[in-house]
């Protein structure tokens, strides 16, 4: 049977890649949509029965308690699903939108609408027609990671709201869009502030930050930037769009440590889309996580093999890095390494002989290790490297 393709036989026993004895899973695509659009004064509707909202606001959204945003659940019922009743979703969205007047409406479906084959894009069109508010549907189904959902959400928002005409920057100072800031990768907002300050210290001006903090207000003028710095893989789609539409070059990197920061500065000045940092081959250090973050750590310490369970991340990996299939495979592969850098929850599958260096990632362990999230921007990165003494 076809399903046999996704199993391995180890010592006569079937190992199922989808089975996790103990590990957590990453934030899903639906939460990714809401996280990316949280501060943009819209209305996000997760089209789901129940559960997605509490998962999102408990484990995926650290702003929920203090910063208001319109993130709601449709509450689809069994009968609506079976009878294909789309009118309730449409009417509920229209009613709330008329009461609350969001700037846009984003729909993020979950497994059941996906299974039912609901035409979510047509539903979005109908809501837009009835409210006169820009409405878009994201192709989510709760079975992909936050990178998939957030990157699509930012792209759809960009297509609607980014001004279409490119203005020439008459200043000599280059304007930069920072793309990919969400609490899922940068839960501690101070890290985003450090990145902003680092770019400013390079002598550049920040045009906008996608999509956290006060500089989100200028996202619609992203067309005016000279360069895009992509700081998470969820920013890649929109960076490609801005390049295609406005010819803005982009670099995927994070200013962790002085060397990387200097190279980013040079790349921006020259309009280069790559930075070259020599890293040692055959490393005994494993780095687990999102690929942009992990790559910046690898560059900072000068070596490492990246392991990721994020399928949507694959295109940013280099040849030595590994797209992992599941918990058991990752556990077996990590046996070959002396050091592992990753979210503390990965400790559960790492042998006690291995030196584990904690790098909490909100999109993996949620709020559990939020207080221990480390800022590696600029000199902080160098200090951390000295401290861990690899």
């Amino acid at each position, binding site marked *: 049977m076809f*399903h046999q393709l996704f199993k391995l036989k180890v010592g006569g026993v079937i190992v*199922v890649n989808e*089975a996790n004895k*103990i590990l957590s*899973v990453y934030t899903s695509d639906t939460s990714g949509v809401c996280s990316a659009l949280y*501060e943009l004064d819209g209305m996000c509707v997760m089209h*789901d029965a*129940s559960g997605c909202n509490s998962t999102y606001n408990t484990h995926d959204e650290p702003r929920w308690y203090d910063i208001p945003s319109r993130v709601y659940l449709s509450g689809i019922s069994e009968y609506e699903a079976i009878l294909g009743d789309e009118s309730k979703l449409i009417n509920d969205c229209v009613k709330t939108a008329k009461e609350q007047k969001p700037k846009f409406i984003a729909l993020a479906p979950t*497994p059941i609408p996906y299974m039912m084959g609901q035409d979510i894009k047509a539903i979005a069109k109908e809501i837009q027609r009835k409210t006169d508010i820009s409405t878009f549907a994201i192709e989510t189904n709760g079975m992909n990671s936050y990178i998939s959902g957030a990157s699509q959400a930012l792209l759809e928002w960009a297509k609607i709201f980014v001004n279409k005409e490119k203005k020439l920057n008459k200043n000599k100072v280059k304007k930069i869009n920072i793309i990919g800031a969400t609490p899922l990768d940068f839960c501690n907002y101070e890290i985003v502030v450090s990145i902003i300050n680092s770019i400013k210290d390079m002598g550049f001006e920040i045009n906008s930050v996608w999509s956290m903090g006060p500089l989100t207000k200028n996202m619609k003028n992203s067309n005016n930037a000279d360069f895009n710095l992509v700081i998470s893989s969820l920013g890649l789609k929109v960076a490609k769009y801005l390049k295609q539409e406005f010819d803005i070059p982009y670099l995927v990197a994070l200013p962790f440590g002085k060397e990387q920061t200097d190279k980013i500065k040079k790349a921006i000045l020259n309009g280069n889309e790559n930075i070259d940092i020599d890293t040692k081959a055959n490393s005994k250090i494993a780095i687990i996580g999102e690929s942009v973050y992990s790559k910046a750590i690898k560059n900072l310490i000068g070596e490492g093999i990246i392991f990721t369970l994020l399928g949507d991340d694959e295109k940013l990996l280099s040849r030595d890095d590994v797209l992992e299939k599941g918990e*058991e495979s990752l556990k077996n592969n990590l046996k070959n390494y002396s050091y592992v850098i990753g979210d503390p929850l990965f400790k559960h599958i790492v042998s006690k002989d291995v030196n584990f260096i904690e790098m909490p990632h909100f999109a993996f362990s949620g709020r559990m290790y939020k207080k221990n999230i480390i800022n590696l921007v600029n000199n902080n990165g160098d200090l951390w490297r000295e401290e861990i003494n690899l």
Partner: protein
Amino acid sequence: MIDLHNIDYSTSSNKISNLDFDNLFPAGLVYAPPARGVWNIVHIGFLMPESHEIFVCAEGCIRGVVLTAHEAGFESRFSTVVIQERNVIDGDMEYQIIDGVSDVLNRLEKKPKAVEVYTSCIHYFCGCDLDFVYRKLREKFPHIYFSDCYMTPITRKSGITPDEKMRRQLYSLINDENKDVSDNSITMVANVYALDETSDFRQILKKANVNYRDITLSKTWQDYQDLGKSKCFAYTNLAAEKACKTLSSRLEKKSYYYPICYRKEDIRKNNKQLCELVNLKSFDTEVIENEIDILIEEVKVLLKDFSIVLDYTATARVLNLTRFFIELGLNVKKVYLDSVNNSDREDFIYLKENCENLILSSPTHPAARFLHNKENSSEKILAIGQKCAYFEGTSNFVNLVEGNSYCGFDGLKKLLIDIIDAINNKKDVSSIIQVKGWGCNCG
């Protein structure tokens, strides 16, 4: 950022006199406030001693439950099988469960006595043959008991709710052979906290020489099996009714409802009925009732300048508690709830007739999203329940979750002491209400 000045909050609330018992607020988009003390199906499942939970669902659904387990410290009793797009398309759901669960069990160093396998909405909709799945699993692992559990929120409006179903399935592995045993005990069914030893219920049982059993006190598989030996099964909360009645019916024993309540006459009535059940002539409550009267006077003085707000997560009898306060002459401002359960029907009718200005407010209405930021007045508010503490922005807060372990006059006395404490000592609401499954330390 959202402009909070032009939001119409009024649509989430209404006077009780304008509302119908069966349909308080029309269903619409749903908001979820960040109050998380109520136990979910993961916490409840862990009450089964020596068990292991395995959830089979999509990544988005797993995220919440796996982190629930990790946060509660039960990660070693929790595993998952992630449904991916290819599984939905291939139609290999049955084998994915069988192989995934088998793989997890093969990897566990110590095999559990029982496995609670949670299937999801996807299985329900694709017509997954769960009978086949469990038959195969039982064949492969003959020494492990399997319980079919469900995370199917899509069915929450069509009969038994997922919460009720979970409470019911928690007892599904109690052996049928217990039909033939009937010792002098009563088992409390499907509550999340054991009733206090000093509670009226347990004191009455003690006085009548009847033993008290409770899954929350069960430490071993044998303790769990012994729950079935009692002569009677009781419940205090309507969410446990189906669990209790199913178990009673299966083991051919009596089921008994001792509803949590707060009004003195209701408590007396409950105690009288319980005494009749266990053949106790009387249960003297004069001393504790006098103590309660003294506490009530103190509460009345302390609450002179306060309004009281309550929400449905504090207790299954939130309108009975509201009525208790109103009959004392206290100022109840608002009750947050989306629906009223049948045990509170009489109290709803009373309040509608006698307290027409009482506001009922939907905690899940989209407009409720902005209440927390709106409420920052100097008004003195006592909140009973986590959700209303958040909405009202008050630190004078009683952290009552599903009634806590309180019951009878003893429970009322404890609640009054908590109220006095809440008025005198402000609480850090944010750090308390964001803890998931308050008091879940059954591992």
